[in-house]
């Protein structure tokens, strides 16, 4: 549809860039920002750990070695072992998988749903559907997020999929609000009017012409939100309401560390460090994103 539009109105092509173009432009800009590159490298390390966990871990994450339990860091087990003698390093690396899955899963799901509903609301400004969606967003935003997630998981039962769904449900209104506000400013633009005049269907206009143009502020939120999701997954797992043991998750490792806090400090320290690493990675990256996508900041 972009091509037909650009044939009719030359020069308008650049106003509706493709998804991939936006992303690659953003990535090039982030790498130039101080810290952004470091964040990207850290996230790549996490992704590498998540995808290649079975090849790079020295031990099976669930293999028990009761004789050598509560071992401190040493040559046999670089980061020590937990209360069942399981290798902490292997469990941390496998924990990356859960963190990455939850971060991308929950943020992906909530941003797709949120942006779609937000654009719908903004495009139909002042109509019943708009009021209904604002109402829906405001209801969900009224809850303290983690408490709502906790209640949903309590009802659905603890599992990885349910955690992702619960976290996505608590976060989608934030994307909805951003997308709605952005849509209000974009939809009066000439190229939208042109698309309407050409008789394009509202759904096509929403997906092809509005959504790509409102993504910048949404993308900025994605990075920081991924960090938040990782914290909350760990938090829920820490409470025993997240991923089920014996799956290696940083939150479950902290839960076990809390139980044996008197015996071994390593069971808390290493997962805490892993979480800190992930948080720094995502916040550097999202700060880079923010600066990269904000023309005012880029000029500084």
């Amino acid at each position, binding site marked *: 549809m972009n091509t037909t539009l650009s044939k009719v109105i030359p020069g308008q092509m650049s106003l509706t860039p493709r998804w991939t173009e936006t992303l690659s432009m953003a990535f090039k800009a982030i790498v130039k920002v101080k810290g952004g590159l470091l964040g990207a490298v850290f996230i790549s390390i996490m992704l590498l750990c998540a995808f290649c966990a079975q090849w790079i871990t020295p031990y099976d994450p669930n293999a028990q070695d009761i004789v050598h339990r509560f071992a401190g860091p040493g040559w046999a087990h670089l980061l020590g072992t937990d209360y069942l003698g399981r290798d902490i390093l292997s469990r941390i690396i496998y924990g990356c998988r859960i963190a990455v899955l939850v971060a991308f899963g929950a943020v992906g799901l909530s941003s797709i749903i949120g942006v779609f509903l937000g654009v719908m609301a903004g495009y139909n400004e002042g109509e019943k559907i708009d009021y209904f969606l604002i109402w829906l967003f405001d209801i969900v935003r009224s*809850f303290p997020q983690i408490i709502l997630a906790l209640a949903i998981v309590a009802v659905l039962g603890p599992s990885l999929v349910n955690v992702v769904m619960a976290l996505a449900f608590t976060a989608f209104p934030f994307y909805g609000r951003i997308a709605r506000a952005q849509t209000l400013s974009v939809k009066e633009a000439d190229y939208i009017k042109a698309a309407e005049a050409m008789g394009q269907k509202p759904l096509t206009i929403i997906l092809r012409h509005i959504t790509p143009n409102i993504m910048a502020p949404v993308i900025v939120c994605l990075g920081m939100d991924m960090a938040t999701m990782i914290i909350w997954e760990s938090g829920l797992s820490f*409470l025993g309401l997240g991923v089920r043991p014996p799956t290696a998750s940083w939150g479950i490792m902290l839960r076990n560390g809390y139980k044996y806090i008197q015996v071994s400090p390593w069971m808390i320290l290493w997962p805490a460090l892993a979480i800190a690493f992930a948080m720094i990675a995502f916040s550097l990256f999202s700060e880079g994103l923010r600066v990269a996508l904000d023309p005012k900041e880029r000029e500084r």
Partner: protein
Amino acid sequence: MLKYIIKRVLWMIPTLIGVLIILFCLTYMLPGDPATAMLGPRATPELVAALNTRLHLDESMPVRLGYYLFGVVKGDLGTSVWSGHKVSSLIFTALPHTVLLAICSLGMAAVIGIFMGAFGAVRQNSVISRIVTIVSLVGVAVPDFVAALLLMLLFCVKFPILPAIGAGTEDGITGIAVHLILPATALGIGWVGYLSRLTRESMVEVLDSDYIRTARAFAIPQRLIANVYALKNAIIPTITVIGLGVGKLLGGAVFVEIIFNRPGLGKLIVDAVYARDFPVVQGGILVATIFFVLANLLADISYGFVNPQIQYE
């Protein structure tokens, strides 16, 4: 401004009704028979039937929703399935612990954060300015429950100088204060970093503005300029964020209360989740949500008061 406040307050009514509907749906969505789910697999049929009648679980969904909404409006949040206590009285005993914790951690974070931020802005290359950077990084990197675990590891296990669990109510005021140190620090450390960075950024901007330059031209002492003229304007964004913080802390308090075993609202909710005591879960979440909504409202309104340039629609 007044019109905006009235509009916001009125808008809260449909929102809170929606909140109640969601809370109601949560128990409605419980897989299987809710009474059996709450009482556990070993409950006798008589007990299940009694609970069904007591909670109106044998009625149709709209009727149950009606009962629930009507009860909440009357101030009746139901009774705990396990202890038989009124949910409202359980919340009433738990709430002061959480509010005290939130106020202490945010108060501490505000005082330290604003001081460090302002000082860091005035002396941009000083040690304090570096500390602001480090603390704000730590605040980002270490979420509150991890901070709580690390503090417990350090001050209760490695160097056992502070109490690890409880609220210390039996030891009087000093007991309460001592038991607050670690939880409040765990909850507040992220906020110290955040508030100090925020204050530093806005202070740097304010110190750069025309009226400060004019004040300097009038040879007003640097200390007076920084403390009175600049800080007053620089802490506006910080104040708003603190308002939002009260609501956010109620959520974060869940973990800290569990870890330090403080009998607050968060622990009440989580314990009720473990016990599948859904009336308590519903009531606890409702109260936390009301606090959250009110804190957001106050933050929005205060924003307009401290910064008259903001226009409300």
